[in-house]
């Protein structure tokens, strides 16, 4: 039981949670269960971020994806009438083309992952990662940063227009 073994164990457990949660999301026949497993998966992804020392990103992952996006989905599922009576089919006549495309995408991913020279040096994560991100947002990436506010405004207006139609 060395420390390296424990760390690897933690990594594999978290990865297992991410993948198992993801499989449940797409295979569950109950939409609400899918939404809850989505929360589980997204939270586990935050664990991966923590293991990579991306602490700010982990916090944001939980805040935005678990706290906001998944919550919105749960709201959407709950507000849809009579869902538990609907048996969701997850097979249809396009199953073979879909499998083909998925296999192609998998091959592409495997090729990309095995072919990319990942930096494996002993790189220490920046101590003040959050501050570094803040400085970058305010200097180098200030235009994209401001564009985000325009994007958010557009999303807000769009949401209002759609929601008011009822």
């Amino acid at each position: 039981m060395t420390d390296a073994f424990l760390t690897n164990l933690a990594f594999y457990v978290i990865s297992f949670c991410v993948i198992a949660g993801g499989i449940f999301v797409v295979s569950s026949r109950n939409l609400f269960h899918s939404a809850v497993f989505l929360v589980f998966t997204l939270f586990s992804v935050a664990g991966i971020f923590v293991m990579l020392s991306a602490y700010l990103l982990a916090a944001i992952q939980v805040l935005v994806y678990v706290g906001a996006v998944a919550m919105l989905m749960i709201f959407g599922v709950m507000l849809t009438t009579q869902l538990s009576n609907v048996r969701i089919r997850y097979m249809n006549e396009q199953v073979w083309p879909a499998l083909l495309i998925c296999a192609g995408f998998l091959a592409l991913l495997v090729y990309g992952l095995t072919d990319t020279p990942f930096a494996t040096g002993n790189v220490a994560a920046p101590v003040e990662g959050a501050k570094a991100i803040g400085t970058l947002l305010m200097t180098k990436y200030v235009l994209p940063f401001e564009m985000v506010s325009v994007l958010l405004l557009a999303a807000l207006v769009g949401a209002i227009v759609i929601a008011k139609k009822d």
Partner: protein
Amino acid sequence: MSVILGSFLVSEYAAVAVFLLVGTGIVLFTFGLAKVIRPSNPTPIKLETYECGETPYGTAEIQYNVRFYIYALLFVIFDVEAIFLFPWALVYRSLGLFAFVEMFIFIAMLVFGLFYAWKKGVLKWV
């Protein structure tokens, strides 16, 4: 791989994982303890859904008002905005006027959206 991951175990974030496991474990333990010592004699009437003494009418999945969803939508947008403000707030003192103007534009955009929602009557609970 373990070179990069090696810092996890000694980092303080391992405490978060341990708290998650220990907390869940203790809660489940109390549930188990209660299961051992509590009585259990269910009757069909006892297991009915509570509806103020009446026989339950249908399921709970009736159409609820969509206004709940609108608040959730607004929340998502303002939550994302608040997240963007955190890295900015951390470095604000070292950047000065430029950062202030930048943030003023950023916030003004969202305040404009808020007033749009207000004028459209989305914030009204009817």
